[in-house]
C-alpha cells in the first residue's frame, strides 16, 4: 500500500510530529542550556562518553557475528569461515529445541531441529561445534537462557577435554532469564527458580571462571518485541538490578562480580535516539552500581555492552535496502561506543543468512572501522547539544520507570503481574496502528513501494538434519553408562530441591553423558513448568 501524505491529516495522529521512532518528541533546535552539562570524560565514572579512555584508538570493537544452523559440523564450518574473514569472536545460535530444553528426539522438537540455530543435545555436539578451535584462544558468546546452565557445563567439559583451564576461558553466556519472561519467551520453569539458577551461575563463574561473563543483560529482545527505546533501557537495567541484588544477597562481593556483568542492546533506526540510549545506559548503570549497591571500584560500575542491529527493522520488500539500514544502525552503535557488534544480514527477514549475505554484514563493520574515520576520536558526538539533551532525557525517563518497578516490589514481581509484558504489547500495538496509518513510513513497505523487487537467495536447511540428529543421539545414549547418567541426574534433583549451587552437579551430569533434554526434565520436575499467561 503506497503512503499518501494527505491521509496523515485526515485523522488524529498517534505519533507526535518530529518524534523519534519510539514516539519521543524532538525539539527543533537544542542549545547550550538543553542539557545538564555534566558530560564527563571517557574512561571515567560515570562513563557517559565511553568505558575506556582511548576507546577504538586503543582497541577496536569485537566484530562478533552470530551464527548457527543445521548440525554442529555445519556451524563449525561457518565459524571457521567467519574467523578466516576477519571476524574475531564466535557467537553461537542454538536451535529452538536446544533453547527450550528438548532433545532432538522429543515430540516437541518436531520440525524444529537445526532450523533456527545449531542442534545440540549432547556434550559431543558441543565438541563438534568447536572442533579445531582452541577454547582458550577465542572468546565465545552463547545465546541460550533457560538451558544456559547445561550448555555452559558442556562448554566447560569440552574445554577440559581440550586441555584448557576454565580460568582461561573468555566469553559470555546470555543467561538473562528475566528478559525471557518479558520478551523472548524461552523458558522452562517459573521466574523465581529461573532467577536462582542464574544466580548460581554468577556465583560459580565468579569463583571458577573469572574471565567468563555469566550473564548478558539484554535489551535486544525487549526492543524487538515492540518496546520503545526508553522501555528497552529501563527494563534491561531493572533486570540487571535484580541480578545484582540476588548475587549480593548470596554474599558475592559486588566489586568481584560487577566487572563480569555484560549488556546487550538493540540498535534501531533512529540514529540520535540510539546513540543517546547507549550513553544514558552507561551513566545510569554506573550510578546504580555505585549509589545503590555501593560498588567501590570503577571497574564494577562500567557497563560494557554488545549490540546488534535491529532485526525487526529489516524489510522483506526491496531487501537490498536492508544493507543501508544495517550500516546506519551499526554506525550509531560505533558512535555510541559499544564493545562488540553483530550486524544483521540483508536476507534475515526470509531465513537465516546465506554465507554471501553474512559476509556483506561483516564487511559493513569493517568499512566503518577502516574507511569512515569515526574511530579516530573518542565519543565523536559527545558535547552535541542534541545528543547530550537526549541522553539526559533517556536517563531520566528510564529512571522513572525503574522507580515504578521498585514500587511494585522489583522486577521479579513486576514480571509476575505482567507489567513489562503489557507495556511492551501496548507500545508494539500503538506503533503498528500508527504505521498502518502511514504516520511512520518504512521505505519499500508503506512508502516508495514497487510492484516487484529483486529476489534474494536464501539459505535452505533440509529436513534430513532431524533424522541425523536423532540417530546420533540414540548412538550416544547407547554408548554411555546408563546407571552413572541416572545417578548424576539424581544428584541434580537433590541439589535443585535444596540450596546447593547447581553448576557442579550439572557439570558432573554432562561428564556422565546426560543430555540437554534429560537435565531440563529434572528442572521441570523439581521447579515446575511455566506456561504462557497469553496476555494480549
Amino acid at each position, binding site marked *: 500500500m503506497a503512503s499518501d501524505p494527505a491521509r496523515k491529516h485526515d485523522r488524529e495522529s498517534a505519533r507526535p510530529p518530529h518524534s523519534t521512532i519510539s514516539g519521543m518528541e524532538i525539539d527543533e533546535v537544542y542549545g547550550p542550556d538543553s542539557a545538564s552539562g555534566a558530560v564527563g570524560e571517557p574512561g571515567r565514572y560515570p562513563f557517559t562518553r565511553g568505558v575506556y579512555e582511548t576507546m577504538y584508538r586503543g582497541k577496536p570493537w569485537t566484530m562478533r557475528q552470530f551464527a548457527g544452523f543445521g548440525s554442529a559440523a555445519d556451524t563449525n564450518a561457518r565459524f571457521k569461515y567467519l574467523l578466516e574473514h576477519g571476524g574475531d569472536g564466535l557467537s553461537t545460535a542454538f536451535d529452538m529445541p536446544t533453547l527450550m530444553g528438548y532433545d532432538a528426539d522429543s515430540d516437541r522438537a518436531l520440525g*524444529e531441529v537445526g532450523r533456527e540455530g545449531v542442534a545440540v543435545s549432547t556434550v559431543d555436539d558441543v565438541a563438534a561445534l568447536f572442533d579445531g578451535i582452541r577454547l582458550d584462544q577465542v572468546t565465545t558468546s552463547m545465546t541460550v537462557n533457560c538451558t544456559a546452565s547445561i550448555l555452559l557445563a558442556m562448554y566447560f567439559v569440552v574445554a577440559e577435554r581440550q586441555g584448557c583451564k576454565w580460568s582461561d576461558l573468555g566469553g559470555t553466556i546470555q543467561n538473562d532469564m528475566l528478559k525471557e519472561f518479558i520478551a523472548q519467551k*524461552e523458558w522452562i520453569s517459573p521466574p523465581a527458580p529461573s532467577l536462582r539458577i542464574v544466580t548460581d551461575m554468577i556465583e560459580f563463574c565468579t569463583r571458577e571462571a573469572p574471565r567468563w561473563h555469566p550473564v548478558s543483560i539484554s535489551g535486544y529482545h525487549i526492543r524487538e518485541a515492540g518496546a520503545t527505546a526508553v522501555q528497552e533501557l529501563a527494563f534491561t537495567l531493572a533486570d540487571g538490578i535484580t541480578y545484582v541484588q540476588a548475587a549480593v544477597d548470596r554474599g558475592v562481593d559486588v566489586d568481584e562480580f560487577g566487572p563480569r556483568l555484560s549488556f546487550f542492546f538493540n540498535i534501531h533506526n533512529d540514529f540520535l535516539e540510539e546513540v543517546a540510549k547507549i550513553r544514558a545506559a552507561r551513566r545510569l548503570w554506573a550510578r546504580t552500581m555505585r549509589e545503590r549497591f555501593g560498588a567501590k571500584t570503577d571497574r564494577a560500575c562500567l557497563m560494557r555492552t554488545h549490540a546488534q542491529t535491529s532485526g525487526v527493522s529489516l*524489510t*522483506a*520488500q526491496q531487501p537490498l535496502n536492508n544493507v543501508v539500514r544495517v550500516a546506519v544502525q551499526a554506525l550509531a552503535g560505533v558512535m555510541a561506543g559499544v564493545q562488540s557488534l553483530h550486524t544483521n544480514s540483508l536476507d534475515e527477514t526470509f531465513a537465516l543468512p546465506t554465507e554471501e549475505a553474512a559476509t556483506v554484514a561483516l564487511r559493513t563493520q569493517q568499512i566503518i572501522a577502516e574507511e569512515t574515520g569515526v574511530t579516530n576520536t573518542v565519543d565523536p558526538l559527545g558535547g552535541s547539544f542534541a545528543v547530550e539533551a537526549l541522553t539526559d532525557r533517556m536517563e531520566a525517563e528510564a529512571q522513572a520507570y525503574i522507580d515504578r518497578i521498585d514500587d511494585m516490589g522489583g522486577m521479579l514481581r513486576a514480571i509476575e503481574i505482567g507489567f513489562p509484558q503489557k507495556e511492551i504489547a501496548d507500545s508494539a500495538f500503538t506503533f503498528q496502528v500508527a504505521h498502518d496509518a502511514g504516520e511512520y513510513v518504512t521505505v519499500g513497505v508503506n512508502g516508495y513501494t514497487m510492484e516487484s523487487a529483486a529476489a534474494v537467495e*536464501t539459505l535452505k536447511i533440509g529436513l534430513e538434519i532431524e533424522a541425523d540428529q536423532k540417530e546420533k543421539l540414540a548412538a550416544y545414549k547407547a554408548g554411555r553408562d546408563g546407571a552413572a547418567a541416572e545417578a548424576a541426574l539424581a544428584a541434580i534433583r537433590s541439589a535443585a530441591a535444596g540450596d546447593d549451587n547447581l553448576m557442579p552437579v550439572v557439570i558432573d551430569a554432562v561428564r556422565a553423558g546426560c543430555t540437554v533434554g534429560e537435565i531440563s526434565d529434572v528442572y521441570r520436575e523439581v521447579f515446575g513448568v511455566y506456561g*504462557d499467561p497469553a496476555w494480549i
Partner: protein
Amino acid sequence: MTDQSMRILVAKPGLDGHDRGAKIIARALRDAGMEVIYTGLHQTPEMIAEAAVQEDVDAIGLSILSGAHMTLFPKILDLLRDKGAEEIPVFGGGIIPDEDIQQLKQLGIREVFTPGATTGAIVDWIRENVPARN
C-alpha cells in the same frame, strides 16, 4: 454477517517465542469487533486443533517464525481433518518464504501474510473469506 458472531483462534505453534505479531493481530481483530481466543506460545498441533474444535471457532490464524511451518502447518490441517473440522479456514503469518507459501496453499492453508501486511488487510481478508455463521 456481523463481526460479533465471528470467533477467531489466534494460535502460536512451535517453540519460538516471537509473539509480537500474534498479539498485534489478536488486538486488531478484537478492535474490529471479532471475538478472539489467543492460545499463547509453544502450542503443539494437537493443542491447536483441540482448541479450535472445543471453542467452535470460525477461523484459525497461525503465527510462526521458527521456520518449522512446513512441518507444523500441514500437521494442524491433518488433525483438523481427523476431527472432521476441515471446513474451518486456516490462515497463517510469519517468516515464510514465497515457495513455501505456494506449497502451503496447495495443502489447504487459505492465505499467508508476510511481514509488511497491515492489520487492516488481515481484517479485510477475514471479512471476505470467512463464511458467515448462523
